[in-house]
């Protein structure tokens, strides 16, 4: 008889991810991912001026504010066929890179590293041995015995204060943890340093966006950063130099610490290259535009079906005709009314809450489908699509990471292994490597363009009275994001956001096909059903983002995740 485990960090308020798995013979035999939040953004936006939409959409989420602002202005620009000046593209690209680097670093260290790293082992570590090990892996200068000893002392102090909970994981001492005390210490020391470097990445967003969270400098048709190289109140050389310095520091952390740590952890848990693949259809949109109309990009896009990497289809533009047509959302197993999959431009969000029923409706997330199929989105999709297309920068970092894993683990790591729980972590680090290199490039592109005397940052939008449709895409940290807008008489007639986590967390569809979270959990091992760490490892590898809709402080402490074993 299968044992049912529910992981539900739910409060009274909507807004969280719930995972149910059935376990048989110490492995997952069935899985359901559901989300308890409900959003009705189109209800909030209908009738408003399309130029204002981004200010609302960036309030979807407390951490990904920037990405929803960007996809929104792009959707309106697409509907109006409005070009974006080069300076504005480069400034936007630097904002997107800063945000993505912050996000990838926080995801690995603050969210998921502690699925693999056991803080309880750290007091037993020998800092000198850990330092020696670190120096054999990386030229990073902050791996000294003293720095590691200081990190170890912090853990000891926290343990003594009884506040280990701040590391936000309940599974210390779990049998599936098995790094040496020294590797645990090293990773934890980088956990602390990551807090500093993610902040530097976010400072870039703050300088160019004037505020974070919620950037203020976007506008339909460009950006509002006035460029004046000699002025301290505009975007001038002092701010540009500050940005370059910050990006260089983050770059060094990514290349010398993040990439190395992911490869080292991966090399020590190689069996996790075998679990967690799930849906092998991959989707990514091109991003970081290099021209004013979005036809050349520095990040590759396209799709792969059924794991057929060689048969990848590239997307040439950010709003590729194939992408525009092929996206639908199904609500067979979602708490909404509706009988057939709908294209986002005609999408509806009429709630029909039934309570959790795994056979029928069980999630507030809709099921986005591409050509009728579930798709996995995220850094892994972008890396696989780029690798398959021979994209040079993707190949460079993918090979660097695979070679590092091979060297540490003493195995031959191949791109096939990326279809897995660890593959998603590796791909995120690979993408961070690419982005930190591109940060430098786009900074230079901006400065060179300004040096030519081009100070333009904005093209004014012109609205007609006829109905127009647009899609704005962004390859966000969690994957393909698309905002779909219908405009008539300069008012929003319909608006839908198809966000990365709905692709990945989608429930089963009208064909019974599971979404990526659900499919990826199948056959995961479960050593201890009371502490289903392995489920968290796989779900975390997607970088889930489900709590973005609501934020209410619960002083009575009911926020504790519920893990129920039936």
């Amino acid at each position: 008889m299968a044992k049912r485990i529910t992981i539900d960090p739910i409060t009274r308020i909507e807004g969280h991810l719930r995972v149910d798995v059935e376990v048989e013979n110490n492995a997952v035999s069935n899985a359901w991912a559901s989300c308890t939040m409900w959003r009705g953004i189109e209800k909030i936006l209908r009738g408003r001026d399309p130029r204002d939409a981004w200010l609302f959409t960036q309030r979807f989420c407390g951490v990904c504010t920037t990405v929803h602002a960007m996809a929104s202005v792009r959707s309106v620009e697409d509907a109006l066929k409005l070009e974006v000046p080069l300076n504005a593209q480069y400034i936007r690209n630097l904002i997107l890179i800063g945000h993505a680097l912050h996000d990838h670093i926080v995801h690995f260290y603050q969210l998921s590293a502690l699925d693999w790293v056991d803080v309880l082992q750290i007091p037993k570590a020998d800092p000198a041995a850990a330092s020696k090990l670190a120096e054999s892996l990386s030229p990073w200068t902050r791996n000294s015995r003293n720095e590691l000893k200081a990190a170890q002392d912090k853990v000891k102090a926290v343990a003594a204060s009884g506040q280990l909970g701040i590391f936000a994981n309940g599974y210390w001492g779990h049998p599936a943890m098995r790094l040496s005390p020294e590797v645990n210490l090293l990773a934890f020391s980088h956990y602390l340093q990551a807090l500093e470097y993610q902040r530097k990445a976010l400072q870039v967003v703050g300088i160019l966006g004037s505020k974070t969270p919620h950037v203020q400098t976007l506008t339909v048709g460009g950006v509002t950063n006035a460029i004046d190289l000699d002025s301290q109140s505009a975007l001038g050389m002092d701010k540009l130099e500050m940005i370059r310095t910050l990006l260089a520091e983050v770059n060094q952390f990514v290349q010398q610490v993040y990439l190395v740590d992911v490869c080292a952890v991966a090399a020590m848990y190689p069996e996790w290259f075998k679990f967690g693949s799930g849906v092998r259809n991959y989707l990514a949109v091109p991003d970081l535009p290099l021209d004013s109309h979005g036809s050349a990009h520095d990040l590759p896009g396209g799709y792969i079906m059924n794991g057929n990497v060689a048969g990848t289809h590239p997307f040439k533009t950010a709003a590729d005709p194939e992408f525009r047509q092929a996206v639908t959302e199904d609500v067979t197993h979602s708490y909404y009314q509706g009988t057939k999959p709908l294209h986002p431009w005609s999408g509806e969000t009429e709630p029909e809450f039934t309570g959790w029923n795994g056979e029928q409706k069980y999630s507030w997330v809709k099921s986005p489908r591409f050509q009728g199929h579930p798709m996995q989105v995220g850094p892994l999709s972008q890396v696989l699509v780029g690798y398959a297309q021979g994209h040079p920068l993707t190949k460079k970092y993918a090979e660097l990471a695979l070679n590092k894993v091979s060297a540490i683990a003493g195995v031959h790591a191949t791109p096939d292994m990326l279809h897995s729980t660890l593959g998603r972590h590796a791909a995120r680090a690979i993408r961070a490597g690419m982005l930190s290199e591109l940060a430098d490039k786009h900074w230079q592109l901006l400065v060179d363009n300004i040096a030519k005397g081009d100070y333009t940052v904005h093209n004014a939008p012109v609205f007609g009275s006829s109905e127009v449709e647009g899609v704005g895409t962004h390859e966000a940290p969690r994957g393909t994001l698309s905002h779909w807008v219908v405009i008539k008489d300069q008012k929003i007639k319909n608006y839908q956001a198809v966000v990365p986590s709905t692709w990945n967390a989608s429930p089963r569809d009208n064909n019974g096909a599971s979404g990526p979270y659900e499919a990826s959990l199948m056959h995961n091992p479960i050593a201890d059903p009371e502490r289903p760490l392995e489920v968290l490892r796989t779900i975390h590898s997607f970088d889930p983002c489900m709590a973005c809709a609501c934020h209410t402080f619960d002083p009575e402490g009911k926020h504790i995740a519920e893990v129920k074993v039936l």
Partner: protein
Amino acid sequence: MKRVLIAGIGNVLLGDDGVGPYVLHQLENSCSFEAGVTLEDLGTPALDFIDHIAGLDALIVIDSVDNGKPPATITFYRKNDLARCPSTIRMDTHSPAITSSLAAAEIFYGASPADILLIGISAENYEAGCALSDSVKAAVEPAVQAVLRELERLGVTVQRKSKTEVHAWWSEAQPA
């Protein structure tokens, strides 16, 4: 000069969850503050909250709370009350993290603010929409007053310019 942050927290798209930013907006538009006082609409921060609180002398947070009390009830929580809240198992990077952020700032930087006041407003409705419920609206002015009293207690000068309620940009009704 005291470094004080007044932070409005909450999602303005989800009914009463937006009360923190709404109260902050009232303060911004009706008062002038001495140097060192910063007002920030932080939306729904996660661990990036640490970056906003490190190095402060005092922190005042205005947020909706889920404490089972009738809507619009204002409850005050001090540093010790917050420290007693258990942290959660994090499913994602975005889960609310006030308690974790305070603890992290304390332990890693030795720098969580000495004075902390969370002004918690019990909510009625978290449905999608930009308006506050009528009951919670009635708590806006008392919450503004609570912030001003706390600033006075901290010895910070404030000038109240007007008591007229200012509608926040997000709370304006949609055109028909």
